[in-house]
């Protein structure tokens, strides 16, 4: 017994020791980070009155390598750490940024950018044309495998190189001299200055990258050229950026420091906002109704559409009248008002609000409502469609959505409308995102939920999704006239004509109705009263250059 006891004690001791060593190392790490935070805190208290903005990034940024960080988690901060040739301004239109000016050739194919003399990297290096050639070539390099590469297809030879057919030498990129960068495009692209504000087009400091290919992985090796630079990065935990004193427009930047937490739970984020640990927060779904009227709420439109896709290869959706009937039985107003409840606009077209044609008219307003809730008309179309197909009874319909509470609620609302207005019973089915996406791409669904978020600010980004065999089509729908209109719009140098083609294309889409739009998206945030000047672009990234905290 005694022996047994002593062995037990030895075991316990071993366990406790193991625990202690684990604890020690953990403690050390803690101390390290504690020290670091200590220094920053000291720094903060030394210059008391420093403006420190506290934001939440949700999760660890995927990557700060510009073309690799192709998602909101990377963009939010990356867009403030770096800067492309242009930057979207407070009006969401491209402004001169790293480039102070540019010349566009008459045929709209050649862009010559003049980079600012005082455009510098945070390590003091000049930002050069070579840095852009290097970065943009990498963006398109098939060996790198960046999912953002498609944005570079506007550049001459871009698609060929990225598809493994061309070579980097044939790309339309040229460093004329140290500060002059010339780009040749495949076709005149009226919105090219908008596209290149996307973080995928940020320059990369070639000298730094060649010496250390993973320069973007840690704070101490990261070189920035934007309003802020990275000062600390505790992976999976938090990161901090401070004002970049090398930035050409540093006098505009008001904040001294931006601290980013990684809180991936909206309730906690909101509680941290309430307790003063964060200056902005998203709104927890359960509180949306109560909080939406508060003074602290800031609502910005997001260029994107939630919609359902019909699979035109599956019965009964081969029939356009049946598609239209169901589309007209979706009550967008009801969904926006009682289900999503975030002040979204109902969608009665595919292209969202906020895109102005050359004469200053909004695309959505000009092209009008292309589908409207109309149960009477829907019933009539359904009968006609069923007669055309010789149906006595409609084949069973399943609506599939990727698993989420919101998607479920919307689908249930749609289900109810179909039943009440058309007398159709549909089945709901949900699947985990990755499975769902694969099935949708393989055209296995009948009717399925989708969302589109714009990559850059032009309607063509929305509309080209539905050309034949596009990876974004996923309806099986194919229409020669539509394909032709989109192809022509992409070639058209005259802006007026280009917009006409796009207006027409969207009308064709809704005459055929392979999709049912539901709502356009919003970006809804709470801001503390003393925070101002945060700009959130419809294309998804935010600007802190003009942000202030009093």
């Amino acid at each position, binding site marked *: 017994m005694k022996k047994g006891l002593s062995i037990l004690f030895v*075991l316990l001791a071993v366990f406790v020791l193991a625990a202690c060593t684990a604890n020690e190392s953990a403690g050390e790490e803690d101390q390290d980070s504690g020290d670091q935070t200590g220094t920053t805190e000291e720094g903060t208290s030394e210059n008391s009155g420093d403006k420190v903005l506290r934001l939440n990034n949700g999760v660890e940024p995927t990557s700060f390598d510009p073309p690799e960080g192709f998602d909101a988690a990377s963009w939010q901060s990356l867009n403030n750490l770096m800067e492309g040739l242009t930057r979207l301004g407070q009006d969401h239109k491209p402004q001169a940024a790293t480039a102070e000016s540019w010349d566009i050739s008459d045929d709209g194919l050649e862009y010559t950018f003049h980079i600012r003399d005082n455009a510098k990297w945070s390590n003091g290096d000049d930002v050069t044309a070579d840095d852009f050639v290097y970065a943009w070539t990498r963006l398109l390099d098939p060996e790198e495998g960046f999912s953002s590469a498609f944005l570079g297809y506007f550049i001459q030879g871009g698609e060929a190189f990225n598809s493994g057919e061309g070579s980097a030498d044939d790309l339309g990129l040229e460093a004329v001299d140290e500060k002059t960068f010339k780009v040749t495009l495949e076709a005149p692209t009226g919105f090219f200055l908008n596209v290149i504000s996307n973080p995928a087009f940020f320059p990369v400091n070639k000298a730094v990258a060649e010496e250390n290919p993973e320069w973007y992985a840690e704070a101490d090796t990261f070189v920035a050229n934007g309003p802020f630079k990275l000062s600390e990065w505790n992976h999976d935990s938090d990161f901090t950026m401070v004002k970049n004193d090398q930035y050409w427009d540093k006098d505009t930047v008001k904040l001294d420091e931006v601290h980013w937490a990684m809180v991936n739970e909206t309730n906690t984020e909101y509680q941290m906002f309430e307790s003063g640990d964060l200056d902005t927060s998203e709104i927890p779904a359960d509180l949306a109704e109560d909080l939406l009227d508060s003074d602290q709420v800031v609502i910005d439109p997001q260029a994107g559409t939630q919609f359902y896709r019909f699979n035109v290869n599956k019965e009964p959706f081969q029939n356009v009248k049946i598609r239209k009937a169901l589309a007209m039985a979706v009550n967008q107003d009801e969904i926006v008002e009682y289900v999503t409840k975030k002040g979204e606009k109902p969608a009665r077209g595919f292209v969202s609000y906020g895109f102005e044609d050359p004469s200053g008219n909004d695309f959505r307003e000009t092209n009008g409502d292309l589908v409207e809730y109309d149960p009477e008309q829907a019933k009539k179309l359904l009968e006609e469609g069923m007669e055309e197909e010789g149906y006595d009874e409609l084949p069973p319909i399943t609506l599939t959505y990727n698993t989420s509470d919101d998607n479920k609620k919307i689908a249930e609302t749609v289900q109810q409308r179909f039943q009440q207005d058309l007398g159709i019973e549909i089945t709901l089915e949900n699947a985990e995102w990755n499975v769902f996406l*694969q*099935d949708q791409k393989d055209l296995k669904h009948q009717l399925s939920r989708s969302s589109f978020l714009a990559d850059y600010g032009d309607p063509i980004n929305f509309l080209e999704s539905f050309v034949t065999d596009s990876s974004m089509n996923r309806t099986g729908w194919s229409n020669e006239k539509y394909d032709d209109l989109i192809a022509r719009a992409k070639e058209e140098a005259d802006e007026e004509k280009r917009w006409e083609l796009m207006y027409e294309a969207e009308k064709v889409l809704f005459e055929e109705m392979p999709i049912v739009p539901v709502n356009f998206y919003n970006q809804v945030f709470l801001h503390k009263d003393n925070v101002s000047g945060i700009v959130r672009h419809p294309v998804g990234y935010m600007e802190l250059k003009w942000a202030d905290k009093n």
Partner: protein
Amino acid sequence: MLRYIAKRFLIMLVTILIIVTLTFVLMHAIPGSPFNQERGTSEAVQANLEAHYHLDEPMYIQYLLYLKSIVTFDFGPSIKQPTSTVNDLLGRGFPISLELGLVSVIVAIISGILLGIIAALRHNGIIDYAAMAIAVLGISIPNFILATQLIQSFAVTWKILPAATWSSPKHMILPVIALATGPMAIIARLTRSSMLEVLTQDYIKMARAKGLSPYKIVFKHALKNALMPVVTILGTLLAGILTGTFVLEKIFAIPGMGKYFVESINNRDYPVIMGTTVFYSAFLIIMLFLVDIAYGILDPRIKLHKKEAE
């Protein structure tokens, strides 16, 4: 004893091999791939990506490569976080989960046992009922609800503790309470019932008859035997708590290991799925092994090895 350990060790290896194989098969059986994105990439890009992560090799080669990575304990790069390797992720997350877990386990064990003993000694008294009421609450309130409520009270309303994140000892208090309450309640109930049973045994009466102080009877004679059931559940409890709890780490924004389990599956991040599974199962198996050994030591009637028993 040594033979027993050797045998157990072999069984442990086989178990891990089975787990690894099953995970590998299941992981590749679910539809979708790590590169399954909304917008299709060019075929050349797709091929390059697959080649980079050896996903273009036949399955058996991938399996062998995987076994190799386990033996060398080098799971390769994460697909979702391209700048980190799986070892980086484990190295970053595990110490934090371990720290949170250890503190919680210690708090749960000490408070659970104390609560159990007090309840047993004051059997059917007010203190017993109070202690057991706490225990029932602890078991029945899910920790994520407790967590949210703790944050609401201590951080938002009273503003005496930080709401979330992991940067100072003060930040540990709320997550530890949320994490320890459930296990504490279980331990308290187990301790109470087995303590009650032990206290009626003859040798306790004997000790009483000898005139030993109640303190000595409880802590020297009764407690050791009463703890057997507690030891039984410790293994799973430890492994579960120490390797990170997804929900609580998410609520408190603690950069531990928990999220990798769930997110790696959603992202089809094959190397991370395999890395976390192997790590977790190895940890669990070792914990269970230690518990078995401790069991044999605590109660000599349980023989670990049949031959030894003969």
